[in-house]
């Protein structure tokens, strides 16, 4: 076998010329083909093989009706499978988020909302507030003053309670 850096021999050059002529569709010089040991039929066959190597196989017009009769049902079946697959993908891609949203809504509207929210007690009253309330339970001559003090203590507690409750209902931490 020859290496790449060696010069082609005359025999090889003649063979290449015969093959090139066959590929171009030109008649090769008879002397070249014969001298190369490559007959015209051999060169044409080789050229035909090379031509078809990179190309799809063409169906001769005479065979088209029978080939099409076989291929058309297969293509239709393939197309139908593709459509069914596409529908399945669409349905799955919608059903999964819809199911997830439904599950989330169910959780948020039942377990996530009422049970935990109603189970949380208001903030603990301060010692001052409890003292003011205890003072107001004594009654006596000045119940109004004790209750007014209780009302003042309640204002700060009320703001804290309302703010915490609103945040809980809005889902804030």
């Amino acid at each position, binding site marked *: 076998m020859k290496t790449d850096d060696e010069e082609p021999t005359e025999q090889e050059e003649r063979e290449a010329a015969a093959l090139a002529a066959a590929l171009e569709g030109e008649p090769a010089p008879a002397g070249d083909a014969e001298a190369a040991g490559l007959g015209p039929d051999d060169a044409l066959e080789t050229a035909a093989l090379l031509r078809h190597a990179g190309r799809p196989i063409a169906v001769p017009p005479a065979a088209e009706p029978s*080939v099409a009769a076989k291929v058309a049902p297969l293509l239709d079946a393939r197309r139908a499978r593709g459509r069914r697959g596409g*529908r399945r993908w669409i349905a799955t891609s*919608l059903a999964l988020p819809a199911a997830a949203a439904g599950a989330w809504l169910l959780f948020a*509207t039942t377990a996530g909302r009422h049970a935990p929210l109603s189970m*949380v007690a*208001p903030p603990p009253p301060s010692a001052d507030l409890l003292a003011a309330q205890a003072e107001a*339970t004594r*009654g006596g001559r000045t119940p109004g003053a004790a209750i007014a003090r209780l009302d003042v203590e309640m204002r700060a507690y009320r703001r804290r309670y*309302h703010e915490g409750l*609103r945040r809980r209902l809005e889902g804030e931490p």
Partner: protein
Amino acid sequence: MTARRPTRSAPYPDPLPAPRREGDGTRPRRLAALALLGVLAVVGCARARRAGDSRWIAEAEHRHAVADQELQGGNVRAARDALRGLVDAPAPGDVPAPDRRSILQDTYFRLAEIDLGARNPRAALASAERGLALGRADDLFVANLLVVRGAAHEALDDGAAAAADYHEALVINDKLLADSLRGGAGAAPRAPEAQP
């Protein structure tokens, strides 16, 4: 094997993609769009309900703040009107019942306290009764209503009823103090309530 595209004169069906027919693949897409709209609508409604809850709480906050401001300016009537607006309007049913009760009872306590300050113990007694009719629990709001009802009884010279209310309020106050000393009632679950 790849078939060459047939010529126009070929008497067999074209194996290349057929033209789109009406309804081919459009029905699933329409259904999908409808399903998506439905999901979005349900999610939107859920968010709106949640927003409705917090709007009522925000309204209560606002009305109490207005009452504070009016009382500071000596305008008792405007303060009472602001609070009456809260108890007269129907409370949304999706606010947790204990919180709805607490907010309304607290508002009745303030109304009764304003009436007592205005030397109108009968109106104070009526407000306290309405508040207590919403439910009972051993909490701060019920204790406050008992205190103010006791004061109204006292102002009406009904010493026995006043003493009973004061005593009941003091029992609750003792429990709240004990809870507070144990580490706060905020982390504890709500005490069971007695329905009216």
